């Protein structure tokens, strides 16, 4: 196979950034899914678009704008969630509505529509040195935080009340996690796209849950699935001349369907084996 794809500087950078994001996005995604807040990625990424628009209007780096908007949105979700704990998913819907509404209005004031649109579906092959350095820094920060807070995040996701009674600093850990989620989503919006980042947060976790036999395995399989989808998606998009963001997510969905198929086949084989054994004993 000809790997001329890796000769290009922009593709090397795309692989580096893509793989780093594929490691940290599912780490965030695992906790988000188990806290039953799967759509938080959608709410944050859509709100990040409002931040991008503000950044472009004011002439500041749109990623910085996206990050600020994401942080505000993430804390907004937490604040609303605490006030209506029985309908916590409503907090996401409310913030999502604010984000989409603001992004829609503000996009009308952005002079360079092409730049704004690049945030919708991402442009992983056109990121700058600054953005690459930002992704590397954030990836290290998020990954180390996830490892250090592994047992605290697990406990809170499993049973927040018991975690608090055991002495876990729930508010501090939740605040750190909210910040990590917000910065991950904002930086990923630039690369894989605001409309796609939430899929990358959830789909690899769903795939991992089919295969894993423990929480730890779910985390590991989520990362493996996301990295596999990113590398495969980048190859396919390069050679088939497709948009990379969408290709990566569709590859992740294909892996999910493959995992479902393999699980079904396994069940069929196992039940056939059991039938055979019972026939023999009869």
């Amino acid at each position, binding site marked *: 196979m000809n790997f001329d794809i890796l000769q290009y500087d922009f593709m090397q950078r795309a692989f580096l950034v893509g793989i780093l994001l594929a490691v940290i996005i599912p780490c965030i995604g695992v906790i988000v899914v*188990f806290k039953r807040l799967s759509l938080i990625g959608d709410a944050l990424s859509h709100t990040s678009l409002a931040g991008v628009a503000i950044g472009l209007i004011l002439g500041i780096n749109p990623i910085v704008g996206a990050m600020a908007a994401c942080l505000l949105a993430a804390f907004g979700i937490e604040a609303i969630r605490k006030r209506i704990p029985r309908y916590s998913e409503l907090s996401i819907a409310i913030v999502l509505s604010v984000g989409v509404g603001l992004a829609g209005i503000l996009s009308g004031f952005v002079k360079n529509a092409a730049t704004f649109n690049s945030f919708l579906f991402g442009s992983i092959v056109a990121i700058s040195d600054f953005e690459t350095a930002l992704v590397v820094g954030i990836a290290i920060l998020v990954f180390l935080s996830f490892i*250090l*807070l592994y*047992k*605290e995040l*697990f*406990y809170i*996701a*499993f*049973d927040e*009340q*018991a*975690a608090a*009674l*055991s*002495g*876990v*600093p729930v508010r501090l850990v939740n605040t750190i996690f909210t910040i990590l989620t917000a910065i991950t989503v904002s930086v990923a919006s630039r690369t894989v796209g605001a409309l796609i980042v939430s899929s990358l947060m959830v789909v690899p976790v769903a795939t991992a*849950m089919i295969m*894993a*036999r*423990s*929480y*730890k395995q*779910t985390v590991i399989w989520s990362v493996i699935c996301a990295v596999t989808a990113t590398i495969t998606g980048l190859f396919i998009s390069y050679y088939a001349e497709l948009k990379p963001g969408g290709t990566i997510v569709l590859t992740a969905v294909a892996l999910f369907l493959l995992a479902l198929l393999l699980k079904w086949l396994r069940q069929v084989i196992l039940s056939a084996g059991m039938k055979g054994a019972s026939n023999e004993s009869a």
Partner: protein
Amino acid sequence: MPAECAIEVKNLSFGYSDVLLMDGVSFCVSKGDFAAVIGSNGTGKSTMIKLLLGLLTPSNGEIFLMGEPLSAFNRFPKIGYVPQNSGSTAGSFPATAEEIVLSSLYSRIGFLKIPGKKHKKMVLDALDSVGMKSHARSLISELSGGQQQRVMLARVLVNDPEILLLDEPTVGIDVGAVTLLMEILHKLNIEHKVTILMVTHDLSHVAQYLNRVLCLSDRNFAEDTIPESLIIHAHAASHEPPHEHVHCAACEQPHDPEHCAVCAQTRDPAQCSVPCTEPCAACSHTHESEDDS
């Protein structure tokens, strides 16, 4: 000498919004008691447990855990709490029994620290104590309701609790699993002197293990199944003097003067043909009269 209170509630009042749920409730659950909280739906049984844990704040009154006021109490890992439907709620989480029990060791492991071999051994020991060691690596979702409930129990036992607060632990599990669970709790109560307070509607299956019943509101509900002498009425009648019990020296369970919960023999100290200081013919325990108040 009166037994020391593991849980003491004095003149407790609490309500949701403008509706007063409990008013002036007082009771003491002594160290080593195996007590049930009973009452109709809406009488505040689960609320009582949450008040004891500080998850809800009473409008009036005081709570003492192991002699310390709740506001100053900071040994919560020593209070094992198994919430209502905890097994089925946990069932949707993709974690193994081992991972779930390990998470409860947080107070011993510490913030930002990694669990060591000794913690993993403690987890296996806790699972072993509820007969679930062989399922340590099973996903909680793949276990039966009774097994899930036993894992939830192991989750609190791993911290060697002094008090267990269980909110309807027998709901949704079959009779065999209820018996198994109650035998484990009985063993903890007798051998490890763990004080147990359990919210339940299932008196028919658990009554034989109890030595106290805390009745919220509905007096008749308790009297149908439990000897009157075991009942503590926690509402309007909460200020009545407690009933006299016969205390078994062998098993350390306070027994009803007229009816021994262990051997089912009449043990009225006044009429008993067997002297109460001698072993009971049926259960071999020595019973001696003692005012349990």
